C-alpha cells in the first residue's frame, strides 16, 4: 500500500516539478492580442462558449448504464470456472436483458449522431 502512495507521490511531484520549472525558467511577456481566445489569427467572433448539442449528455447516460453492466461482468468472469454450468445459464439471461436494452436504445435512435 505504501508503494501505491509512493508512486502517486513520485509521479505527482514529477508533474508539478515540470510545470514549476517551466514557470520559473520560461519567459513572461504578454500583450492584449495574446490574451484573446484563439481564432486562427482573425479577431474572435464571440465571447462565450457555444451551447452544445444534448447528444453528449445522452452518451454519458448510456455510458453509465453500460459501464455498470460491465462491472457486473468482472466478478462473474472470475468465478466462471468454479460454478461451471450454472454460471453460464444465469449470465445468459443477464446478457439477453442487456441486449434488449441495447436494441431498444438503438431503435430509439440513441446512436444516430447526425441530427
Amino acid at each position, binding site marked *: 500500500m505504501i*508503494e*501505491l502512495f509512493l*508512486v*502517486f507521490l*513520485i*509521479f*505527482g511531484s*514529477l*508533474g*508539478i516539478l*515540470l*510545470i514549476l*520549472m*517551466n*514557470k520559473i*525558467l*520560461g*519567459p*513572461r*511577456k*504578454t500583450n492584449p492580442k*495574446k*490574451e*484573446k*481566445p*484563439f481564432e486562427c489569427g482573425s479577431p474572435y467572433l*464571440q465571447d462565450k*462558449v*457555444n451551447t*452544445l448539442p444534448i*447528444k*453528449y449528455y445522452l*452518451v*454519458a447516460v*448510456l*455510458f453509465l448504464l*453500460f*459501464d455498470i453492466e*460491465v462491472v457486473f*461482468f*468482472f466478478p462473474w*468472469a*472470475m*468465478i*466462471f*470456472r*468454479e460454478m*461451471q*454450468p450454472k454460471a*453460464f445459464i444465469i*449470465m*445468459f439471461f443477464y*446478457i439477453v436483458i*442487456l*441486449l434488449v436494452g*441495447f436494441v431498444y436504445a*438503438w431503435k430509439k435512435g440513441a*446512436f444516430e*449522431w*447526425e441530427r
Partner: protein
Amino acid sequence: MMLTLYLTWLERKESAVIQDRIGANRASIFGVRIIGLFQPIADAIKMVFKEDFTPSFSKKFLHNTAPLISFLFVAITIAAIPFGDVLRIGRRSIRLQILDINVGLLFILAMLSLGVYGILIGGWASNNKYTIIGGLRGAAQFISYEIALGMALVGIIMVYPSLNLSDIVVYQGGHFFGVLPKWGVFFQPLGCIVFLFAAMAETKRVPFDLPEGESEIIGFFTEYSGLKWGLFMMTDFMEIIVVSCILTTLFFGGWQVAWLAAEGFIFPWGGTWVLSHGVVVFLQVFAFNIKVFFFCWLQILFRWTYPRFRYDQVMDFGWKLLIPLCIANIVITGIVMSI
C-alpha cells in the same frame, strides 16, 4: 524498486525516440548525432524554456491542474505492469513490477478512465469554443470506448481467472501440444482485436483523433503552451506505451518467451539449453520490451497510414460494432468453455 522505476523511465524514453522520423536528426551533443537520438531531449529542454502562458480569460487553477491530472494518471498506470519475473540476487528477490496489486487490471482500467478528467477540465478551463468542443468530443469518445475496452477484457478473465496481472502472465506460461505458447491471443482472438481498436481510440491517435483533429478544431490543448502542452503530449505517447503494455501482458504472454522455462530453453523437438537465472530474467525483460516496442510501432504505423474518421463514424464504430462484438465474444467464450 529503483530498477523498475528506471525501466519505466526507459520505456518513456523509448516512446519519444520511436516517433523520430528521418526529419529529426539535427540535434547533436558535441557534434555527435546518432540518427537524431538526442532530439527528444532537446525538445524537452526547449519546452522547459518556453513561456508558460496562462491566458487571462481562462480558469487559472483548473487550467494549471488539467495537464497534471492527465499526466499523473497515465504515469501511474505504467507502474502496475509486470516487466519480468522475480529476479533473485543472492538472498534478495526483487519483483520486476512496481505495484503488485491484486486487482491490477481494474486499477489500470480505473486510472486510464480517470485520465478523461484531464481532457475535460483542460477543454473547459481554457474557455475557448474550440477547446471545449475538443474536450467534450474527447470525453464522449473516451467513455464510449471504455465500455468496449472493459468488455473485451471480460473474456480474458474468464480464461485466466485472476485480476492480478503477474498471475495472468504466469498462467500464460504453458504450451499447447508443447509447441504453441499459451498466450491469450490464441484463446481470445476476437477479444484481442476489439481491445486493440478500443485502446487505440482511447489513446486519441489519428484514426480516432477527433478531440484533437488538427485541421478542424485544434483540440482541447489549444490554449496551452510550454511544458503544460508538453505534458498533454507526453500523456498521449505514454498512453500508447500503456496500451502496448496491457496488450502484451494480457494477450501476448507478457514477459513469457516461448519455450523458455525457469532453467532455460526446452525445445519442443527435445533439445534443452540450460541458462543461468540472470540470463533468463534478462531475456524475459528483453522479450517484454520487444513486444511492447512492436505494438508501439504498430500503432505509429496506424497513425501515419490512416485518415481521420468522421465523428459519427467513430461513435458508430464504438457503439454499433465493438460493443455487440464484445457481447458476442463473451457468449462464445462461455459456450466454448462450458463444453
